[in-house]
């Protein structure tokens, strides 16, 4: 008999209902974090933030240098980080003669580029590692009885699982983006920059939500459709790749039909209504624009490539995020992508509500 065996005793404590989702989420995060692969990918997922942090630092260095003598337009006079910063500003369409205006634009575009280019791809990998097991694993281990034989509703269960994935997704997208903003404020010449860019953290949160909600729900919906997590993982990656390829093929076909190479389309895009005014250097097709063209593309400057964005979750999210950051100013341009995200969200929710407790009904 164990030393502390006091036999069975009744329990008269107070229970608090309605916290099940939180319990499921915290336990799920703890279990997911046990995966060595996830920890490695997470470290890797933060590494792009270092590069973008360099961008913020260089830009602020350029602002500082310029304030000491000379302007942005005299990039030739700047050295080291200041030079790189001026190139970044120039490439991202910053108004070189107005530091405050340039900061808002460059920061927005850097943040958008950060959330779009490396993080959205890494997010797909992280979600692909974690999500398939979340519900499929429960179905396989028949763990649904652990939940539904207790005071846990379908909503609690789904919310808990969403919480697990959302927390991990936010670690990849939201937190590093917010950290970049904080870093930008810290390396800027004045603390008032935080006040001047107060809306950026809010935009980051909304943009992260635009990525997180449909992505997480779609991944969980796949997970709920099978007890084999491998199949769910395959479906997840296949969807991303297929959408990407479809989007790329259609966009390529458009370009070929118009007979315009990509760089030319970028140039054309800059002069269009609804976009921030691009820098003169960009219109000229300068060397810096060519070097940092990928950044401009990720930052949502090139709208001609977004015609088929609604077909791909990744690209649809990009368009919506560009609209959230104020880079895409036309709401109508974001509507097809918004519809895609809403459709994915609603469809995934329907699947989840139908599937998560399906075994209890058979």
């Amino acid at each position, binding site marked *: 008999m164990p030393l502390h065996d006091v036999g069975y*005793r009744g*329990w008269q404590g107070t229970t608090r209902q309605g916290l099940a989702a939180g319990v499921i989420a915290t336990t799920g995060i703890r*279990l997911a974090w046990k995966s060595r692969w996830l920890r490695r990918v997470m470290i890797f997922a933060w590494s792009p933030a270092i590069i973008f942090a360099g961008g913020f630092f260089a830009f602020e260095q350029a602002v500082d240098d310029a304030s000491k003598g000379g302007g942005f337009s005299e990039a030739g006079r700047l050295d080291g980080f200041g030079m790189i910063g001026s190139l970044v500003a120039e490439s991202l369409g910053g108004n070189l003669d107005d530091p405050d205006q340039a900061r808002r634009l460059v920061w927005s575009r850097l943040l958008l580029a950060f959330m779009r280019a490396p993080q959205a791809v890494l997010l797909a990998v992280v979600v692909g590692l974690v999500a398939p097991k979340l519900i499929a694993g429960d179905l396989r*281990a*028949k763990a649904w*009885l652990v939940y539904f*034989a207790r*005071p846990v509703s379908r909503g609690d269960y789904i919310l808990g699982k969403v919480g697990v994935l959302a927390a991990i997704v936010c670690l990849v997208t939201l937190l590093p983006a917010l950290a970049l903003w904080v870093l930008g404020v810290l390396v800027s010449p004045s603390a008032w920059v935080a006040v001047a860019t107060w809306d950026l953290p809010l935009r980051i949160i909304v943009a992260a939500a635009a990525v997180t909600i449909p992505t997480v729900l779609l991944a969980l919906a796949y997970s709920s459709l099978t007890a084999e997590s491998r199949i769910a993982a395959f479906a997840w990656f296949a969807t991303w790749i297929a959408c990407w390829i479809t989007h790329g093929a259609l966009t390529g076909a458009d370009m070929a039909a118009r007979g315009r190479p990509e760089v030319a389309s970028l140039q054309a895009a800059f002069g269009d209504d609804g976009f921030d005014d691009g820098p003169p250097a960009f219109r000229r097709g300068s060397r810096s624009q060519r070097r940092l063209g990928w950044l401009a593309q990720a930052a949502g400057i090139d709208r001609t490539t977004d015609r088929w964005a609604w077909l791909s979750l990744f690209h649809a999210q990009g368009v919506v995020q560009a609209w959230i950051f104020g880079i895409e100013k036309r709401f109508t341009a974001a509507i097809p992508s918004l519809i895609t995200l809403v459709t994915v969200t609603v469809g995934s929710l329907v699947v989840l509500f139908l599937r998560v407790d399906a075994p*209890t009904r058979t």
Partner: protein
Amino acid sequence: MTGTAADATPPVQLQNVTKRYGRRTVLDDVSFDVPPGITGLVGPNGAGKSTLVRAILGLVRLARGSVRVHGLDPARVPRRVRAMTGVVPEDDATVPGLSGVEMVQYAARLCGMPATEGLRRSHEVLDWCDAGQERYRAIETLSVGMKQKVAFAAAIVHDPAIVILDEPTNGLDPLERRAMLGRLVSLARDHGKTILVSTHVLRDVQSICDRLVLLVRGRVQLAGQLADLTGSDTTSMRLRGTGQLADLVGRLATRGIAARLAHDGDGLIVEAGEAAAIREVWAEALGAGVTVWSLEPERRPLEEVFLAALAAADAGEAQHATA
């Protein structure tokens, strides 16, 4: 938490419960009560036992009929019903990656217990279940018996008024099996719990259950006190004692009382139901020098009752088909 043996109405009441999956009727007009104590739910595979348990938990929508758990309708207030119920499923039903004690604590927290109190209570019930240090191992690495203990501890950690167990002795060695049955008896008798045990092991039912419900093809074929079901139609007595039992058989034969040594080697079976005959058995036992430990009505083996009920169900089915 809720519900005591003192309540007048049975904790679980099922009235005309009918459940269909498409055209297939899984539960057909099932009505019975589960009073405090231990009720055995037996039946062949596919009889509808699992569906019945799900109906009690409010997990399935009924085509007809009603279920009441302490007066509550599980279809309307499933959370409240599940909060007062603990379930040990037949399958593992565990969360891979958690240790035994974490699994029990997880169950406690899902029921709304605070984390620290849930952990304290988890250790308390695991101690009672004699889980030892195995509780700290990952659940997927535990033996079947240990998993069963963890599942049982997870079911009772929030001190439910009603405990439902599906094959609770599956995979347990004889010692563990006996210990598990002892815990169920203790919960029922010492703590006033209402226990519903769904099992195929009739020996377990006979040894611990007060009541029996036999489900065949979704219908209640037999329901009642176990003592009534296994002893009502017999006039035999079982005599247990020491001494020359074979001699006693011969002496009883001269008095015109049929007797035989029990097949299981546990005493004599005497065909004597009336009081006069019983007095004669006592007298002859004394004469033969047999020390009588007990003389009690012989119960029919539950297996016999079970098979007879199945045969009756088959006959009824055939008659229905012919008609």
